[in-house]
């Protein structure tokens, strides 16, 4: 046998390919004749350094440019081959990981396995492709820069992280993207794209023995990395004092982002932080919605615990109603957060938040790709078993946990606050706000 069974947990079986340590997760669900295949690489913008930001993402684009087997010249371009099957396919890059995926009619599983095995080591990464793809990525970056909310979000992370690479956005800084040498991308590819740095995930309508056979046939001959995968070791030191900044450019509605440093995903407080973000911002009964949208202070409000391999941020974002000042909206938003430190959340409210999280996990099971995505996210930041354990972790959260976690992380010294203040374009009469400085 070319593979070893490692463990089985809640209907998901983990295997390892003996020849190269590729991790394989199989989650058969035979509700409909479709299958999702995903390969996750443990490399993201977290592994980039000054001058090379955006390399992981640009490389991800380059992996659609072909291999000796799959290419435009012989009519087998990866996208065209997958499109022909009506597949849902793409790839995405984030701080900690890059993932490539396909959802196809179940009789096409081998196609997805073959493409991903092939492009793991055989991608061209040619200089002429890099030149045209760089400008594609530059347009992607420019589209992001069109959106004040996106620019504010990026600036907040850049302000909150000084030393750790979560400082820079996954898409990279513009001049780094423009100046990136093809040799640098190739080096990145040769450093991180190996079976022992990857997890393959199959969810949906497939036969376990057939899947194992396909995986060994297509991945077995790929050798493991010649040297160990380099580890990222930079640690963000404590913040030691509030950071504030202002962004001014043309726009319509004012925005506020607040971020507090929170621990890594494997930390025991993850369950409480997940419940906290739901209590604060999920649905119209949530605390922030009631305090800010119902009272006409905000058009939109949200909170999210961004948890990664390394410590991330708990973020609050507010889109201001015209006429409301940033200072007033910030005061009310922070008051809601502050209350979480002292108030015992009523049992009924806590249970509601838990139910929202657990039913969401059940709804997700309707789609093989949805399941694959969430398994991959857990695997990228911690371990795939966290996907299975999350409902249990959430169920155990008590009102005291919520208070303790809020008091631990939502402190002034640990906080970064950014305001987007729109400069008005002529025309639409919208924001009659008297800017408060």
């Amino acid at each position: 046998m070319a593979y070893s069974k490692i463990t089985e947990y809640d209907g998901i079986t983990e295997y390892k390919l003996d020849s190269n340590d590729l991790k394989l997760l199989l989650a058969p669900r035979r509700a409909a004749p479709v299958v999702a295949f995903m390969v996750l690489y443990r490399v993201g913008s977290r592994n980039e350094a000054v001058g090379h930001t955006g390399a992981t993402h640009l490389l991800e684009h380059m992996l659609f440019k072909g291999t000796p087997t799959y290419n435009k010249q012989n009519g087998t371009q990866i996208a065209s081959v997958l499109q022909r099957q009506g597949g849902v396919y793409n790839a995405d890059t984030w701080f900690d990981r890059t993932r490539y995926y396909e959802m196809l009619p179940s009789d096409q599983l081998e196609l997805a396995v073959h493409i991903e095995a092939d492009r793991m080591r055989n991608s061209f990464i040619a200089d002429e492709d890099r030149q045209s793809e760089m400008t594609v990525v530059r347009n992607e970056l420019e589209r992001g820069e069109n959106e004040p909310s996106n620019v504010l979000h990026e600036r907040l992370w850049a302000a909150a992280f000084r030393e750790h690479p979560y400082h820079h956005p996954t898409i990279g800084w513009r001049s780094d993207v423009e100046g990136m040498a093809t040799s640098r991308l190739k080096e990145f590819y040769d450093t991180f794209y190996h079976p022992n740095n990857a997890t393959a995930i199959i969810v949906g309508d497939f036969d376990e023995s057939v899947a194992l056979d396909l995986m060994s046939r297509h991945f077995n001959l790929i050798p493991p990395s010649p040297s160990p995968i380099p580890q990222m070791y930079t640690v963000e030191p404590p913040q030691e004092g509030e950071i504030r900044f202002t962004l001014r450019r043309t726009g319509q509605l004012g925005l506020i982002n607040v971020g507090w440093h929170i621990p890594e995903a494997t930390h025991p407080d993850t369950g409480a932080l997940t419940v906290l973000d739901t209590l604060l911002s999920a649905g119209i009964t949530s605390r922030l919605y009631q305090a800010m949208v119902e009272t006409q202070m905000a058009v939109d409000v949200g909170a999210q615990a961004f948890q990664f391999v390394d410590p991330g941020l708990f973020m609050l974002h507010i889109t201001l109603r015209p006429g409301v000042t940033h200072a007033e909206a910030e005061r009310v938003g922070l008051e809601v957060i502050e209350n979480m430190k002292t108030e015992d959340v009523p049992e009924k409210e806590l249970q509601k938040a838990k139910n929202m999280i657990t039913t969401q996990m059940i709804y997700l099971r309707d789609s093989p790709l949805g399941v694959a995505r969430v398994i991959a996210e857990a695997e990228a930041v911690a371990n795939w078993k966290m996907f299975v354990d999350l409902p249990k972790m959430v169920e155990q959260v008590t009102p005291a946990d919520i208070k303790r976690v809020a008091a631990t992380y939502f402190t002034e010294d640990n906080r970064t606050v950014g305001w987007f203040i729109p400069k008005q374009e002529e025309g639409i009469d919208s924001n009659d706000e008297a800017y408060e400085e």
Partner: protein
Amino acid sequence: MMKPMKNNSFVARTRRFQLSNGVTLMVLENPANPTVSIAGSMRAGEYFSPAGKDSLAGITASMLGKGTRRRSKLEIAEEMESAGARVGLSSNTFTVSVSGLSLSRDLPMIVSTLAEELREPAFPAEELEKMRQRIIANIQEEQDDTRVRAYDRMTQLVFPEGNPFHQTPAEKAIGQIESITVDDIREFHQKFYGPSSMILAVVGDVKADDAYALFEEKLGKWQGAPEAVIDITETPLQPAAIRETVVMKDKPSADVVIGHASRLRRSNPDFIAARIANNALGQSTLSSRLGLKVRDEMGLTYGINSSFAESGIGDGPFVITVTVAPENISLAVGATVEIVNDYIANGIREDELKDEQSSIIGSFKIGLATNSGLANQLAASELFGLGVKYLDEYPSLVSTITKSDVDEAIRKYIHLEVATTVVAGTL
């Protein structure tokens, strides 16, 4: 006794009911996951908004979720959110969509909430005021979006005022929203919300007979408005090409929208051929003709697509959209026009046709793999008068399309020579 052959067709698996007031209900049992999805529609969309109150249909649909004569918005939300369930209405160009999702044990709860909202809405004045302010702020925010500005302006140039595809200019829309009253909403609800055009599809872990009994109990006695008639004349092609710019500040990427009246509806006999014609041209940024040239080869854009944007009950526009840095606009538009002209002159290649056919059939199969995907397809087939059997027949209908069918559709429906091009950005 011999075991009967299992018939896996959608016709065999779907139970179709008529409630006593005329609501059409379809139920497909799928016990794979303990959840239920609802999808459906009713003819009460923006088309029915009276002149001068263009958003009335949308506001009415949203106001139905803002409290009933029995319970406040918050009381309803408490119950729904505590169960992680949702149900609601939203308006489209011609219809109001119904959608719902719950654990199967909570189906009675979402059905009775839906019925309560449809039959006994309260339309509280203070909720209207809040909604009004939110919608206005959203419209203002959208004015900062290059895509919205370019698309809306294109529709204003292509479709006459009063046509449902003509997007009302922002300032005018805001003025109209400010004038809408609770009485307007009440009147709209009485006039257009009724069971006769209502279609509901329910898919998931539920027994068809139980679902029927439940809907009959909650909704079967509802006597609302009589069936509303949609009578929309076809928008002719524009006589000549128009080009306009919308100048905005601080936008590193511009949006280009090229559009014209498509004269294509879901009921056109060559609808599938037209769909294949579009898909090969621009459905996928990564693999269609436009994307292969303008993105993959020239590297000018992250996204270029074409679509028959709203070919359903009415004939919406044929649209090509591309995002591009301002200095590359003429290059991108030039290449786009060249590709389309070549496509019109030479038609689809045989291999391309084959690929698009298998792509449509494969993606149809994938779309039907989830409860919500199935519910949406069942409801849409009913709305367009195609029936459940259409889901079984669709793959073979797609397979029978020939190159000459597609070439004819290309020549009939794609006309860049008279298209309206709008560029929005920092120019």
